[in-house]
């Protein structure tokens, strides 16, 4: 049994790139193995979006098409962005549940590599789901997209995806700090984002004290920008008020998430929390 050590001569960035591909490919393998569950979740999400679309038809009055489009943009965008957030925030709990956490954390791939690999897969997977949802929904509803600026909407979505990946990294540290309760805390994050970001309503309807919370949610700016682009044909350059907060969050959240994750890892290693069993 002859063993070679060729890979030990690779440069650091080569090894990290291979590892990024490893995380993305592993998630693809897992999606394949859990394919029926993936179908179940997709059907559930599509049905949920259809239900919300029909609320727009039923209660939209004379502007039912606009109301339906407004609601469906919120529904689809939330499905995409919350999925990215969930996949990232479950980075640790997933490994713990499978029992592989010790092997992953003793491997020489960096934590940034792990989170980037997870983030890349989450974005690709989310886009595929979004396209399928869009296809099904367009069969059911008349949508108000005659003036839509799709380029601007895609650009804002791309910037927001980076912020959400970073936001997910921040949340991913929770299961490291508390194996038993950490994942529940990330679910609370998701619920608060849903409440304050204006997914199905304008944030103006929230109580005054709650409205400022929307300002720290990347989903709020993404929704504003994408709705402006799709419903009113607003260009990317005319949406600076929505774009600059997303750019700042995109610049702050990923390094902040990585920093917190690394601090969390050191804490877990010091206190013995980095074990396969919760």
């Amino acid at each position, binding site marked *: *049994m002859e063993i070679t050590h060729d*890979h030990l001569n690779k440069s650091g960035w080569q090894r990290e790139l291979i590892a990024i591909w*490893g995380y993305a490919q592993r998630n693809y393998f897992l999606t394949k193995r*859990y394919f029926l569950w993936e179908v179940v979740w997709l059907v559930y999400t599509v049905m949920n979006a259809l239900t919300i679309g029909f609320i727009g038809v039923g209660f939209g009055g004379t502007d039912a098409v606009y109301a339906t489009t407004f609601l469906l943009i919120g529904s689809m965008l939330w499905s995409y962005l919350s999925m990215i957030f969930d996949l990232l925030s479950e980075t640790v709990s997933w490994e713990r549940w499978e029992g592989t956490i010790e092997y992953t954390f003793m491997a020489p791939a960096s934590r940034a590599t792990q989170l980037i690999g997870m983030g890349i897969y989450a974005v690709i997977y989310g886009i595929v789901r979004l396209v399928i949802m869009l296809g099904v929904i367009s069969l059911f509803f008349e949508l108000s997209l005659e003036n839509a600026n799709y380029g601007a909407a895609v650009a804002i979505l791309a910037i927001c995806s980076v912020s959400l990946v970073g936001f997910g990294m921040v949340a991913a540290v929770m299961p490291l700090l508390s194996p038993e309760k950490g994942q529940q805390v990330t679910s609370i994050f998701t619920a608060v984002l849903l409440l304050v970001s204006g997914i199905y309503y304008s944030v103006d309807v929230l109580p005054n004290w709650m409205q400022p919370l929307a300002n720290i949610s990347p989903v709020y700016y993404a929704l504003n920008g994408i709705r402006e682009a799709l419903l009113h044909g607003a260009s990317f350059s005319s949406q600076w008020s929505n774009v600059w907060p997303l750019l700042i969050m995109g610049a702050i959240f990923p390094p902040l998430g990585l920093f917190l994750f690394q601090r969390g890892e050191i804490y877990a290693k010091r*206190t013995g929390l980095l074990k396969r069993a919760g």
Partner: protein
Amino acid sequence: MVPTSIRPQENALELTNIEKKFKKKRGEYSYALKGVSLTVHRGEVVGILGPNGSGKSTLVRVISTLTLPDAGEVKVFGIDAVQHPRTVQRFLNRVSVEASFFKKLSSLENLLFGAKLYGVSDAESKPRINQILTGIGFDVKRIGEPMEHLSRGMQQKIALARALLTSPMLMLLDEPTTGLDPRSKKDVQKLINQIRQGHDSSILLCTHDMGEAEELCDRIGILLNGELIAIGTAAELKQMYGTENLEDVFMAATGTSLDEAEFAPDERGDEAAVAEPAPELVEVGVG
């Protein structure tokens, strides 16, 4: 400066006065490791014999950079594992009592993933997977089956293959045969012997199987309540304690049989027990 490579001329592993305690309740701690010092020379197989809760797994976690020691120094081929964990991680791997795989994924998918975390691409790992699996007597036709369909013995062979794929210079084997049926146990032990003979690897083997320790290890240490109380070759230990087998050595060194120690109360689960202070270290021969 961060070292990018190991120093092969150095000892594979040097532990100096490793201490680790875990918080139990407010203000109460239990010691998992108490002043453990140990050297594994390059190419050597060192066994750590101890009952459940003696600190074996904590010791392996400290070496594999998963747990930070409170005090002491861990050096792998001369590199400080606490200061430079990522350099050290490239050169070591581990097989533990639980095979720890993505259960729904196949052996191949798990192996490809495990290898990539160490920078081994698919193009490099695929031919090696075939070579390694054939070498360890794994039926390669089953390589596409989900791990959960394989027996524990087969899963453990895949765990060894996963470690071998990354060409570790130091292998940490934490009770790799515990819970296996006798035939699988023999297979895995044979494989460890093959690795020892055919691969430039040093091995730290934690076990509570006396026969396994005697058969596979150049030197054996006895760990009790987080303290390394004796270390030497099997012959040296027997001579030292004037006994004919390792069971009696264990009894003489610890004042209890391994079976009794296995069932001693242990409030901390898989970490070390809080118990009477262990006897002082008896070191015989080199080390």
